[in-house]
């Protein structure tokens, strides 16, 4: 009956037992498994999951009065996230459940007839309608240009939870408004 170590369960023969080749094999396999366990953490520490995506410079077409989920066109970098293949990239899904720092920069690139209200948001948490972050800007004088906006927040995201997406909403007339978006996500900690 072999003994085992307390943390990794490395098996070893007890005194008085006959030592066989299997004992050496079990010992080596358990040490190997313990090393692999620590190595996986080391790899995660050295390569914290993160990603960044963006639209084309021309931006995405967003009609007035509707919440529009941004479709991204380009993956700037991707370490540990699932992002749909070209051309539809509406969301970034972390491959590890956890807490993530998320941010997005929205930049309207064209003039419309009038803008009265604009809102930028990041969505994801637990599939609820509540956003990770949302910010609104209102205009008290007649204008044709919307302002760039930045939003950021902490999201609970992952394969068994929700992906991260960016949403733009504006009120006004005519349009569409074309909105450039650059979204980033970075791992903070496990759940």
């Amino acid at each position: 009956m072999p003994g085992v170590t307390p943390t990794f369960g490395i098996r070893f023969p007890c005194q008085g037992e006959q030592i066989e080749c299997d004992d050496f094999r079990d010992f080596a396999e358990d040490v190997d498994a313990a090393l692999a366990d620590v190595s996986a953490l080391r790899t995660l520490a050295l390569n914290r999951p993160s990603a960044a995506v963006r639209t084309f410079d021309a931006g995405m077409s967003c009609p007035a009065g509707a919440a529009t989920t941004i479709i991204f066109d380009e993956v700037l970098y991707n370490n540990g996230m699932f992002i749909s293949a070209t051309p539809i990239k509406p969301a970034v899904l972390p491959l590890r459940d956890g807490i993530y720092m998320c941010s997005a920069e929205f930049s309207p690139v064209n003039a419309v007839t009038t803008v009265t209200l604009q809102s930028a948001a990041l969505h994801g948490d637990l599939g609820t309608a509540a956003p990770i972050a949302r910010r609104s800007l209102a205009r008290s004088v007649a204008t044709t240009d919307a302002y760039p906006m930045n939003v950021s927040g902490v999201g609970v995201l992952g394969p068994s939870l929700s992906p991260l997406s960016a949403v733009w909403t504006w009120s006004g007339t005519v349009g569409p408004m074309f909105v450039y978006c650059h979204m980033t996500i970075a791992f903070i900690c496990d759940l």
Partner: protein
Amino acid sequence: MQTIGTHDLACVGEEDYAALALYMQCLGKDIDSKLGAQRSALQSFLDRPTIIVTNPLDTVVTTGAPTIATLFNTVHFNNSTFMGLALNSPAGANTITIGSPAGAAVTVPYPRGVYIIGGTTRMTAVGAVTAFSRRGLNITVQDPTAVVPPLGPREAVDQTYDPGVGGGNIGQNVKFEVVLDGISGVTVTLNSYHTNAASNVTVHSRPFAYVTYVGPRDIVEVT
């Protein structure tokens, strides 16, 4: 038995072959202990202390008391041992605490260094909208045991406006960094307010506020 390498692992000598079982036991436990320490250190590095607070319900902020500090009343996530949510402390406010309560004996010191603090809320007028009235989220950090003047802002506000064009859902979003240089007693107060005179304002369910520890702002190496 002798020790070898930088981790002083046991190595059997010619005279020890009769004690192979004992050797494997010692070696196994030694590897277990040293790898366990490395795993613990890595896990601590990866699990950056973070608290997220929320409120599962809509909250009405009246015109008579247009500022509230009790919006956030539920812990959504907390992997730290030194942060928490104190309800009605001080009276009339729910605060995120870092370290032991202010003024109390220091039983839970906090790690000095850089913290990221932020939050988001959404507000909609219950009835009529006073055009371009304000909707705000104000986050204030107090570090009463700091021994040096604070670096960077201790307060951040996002103030937005409702133009009254319909729909409401006016969002506020705050994020900033602070350096905490004390020992204990830090409070993070989150105030939601509006200036809508025409009707009460609802703060929608699931607002989020968070504090996450980034790490020390300087590393002292002892050689």
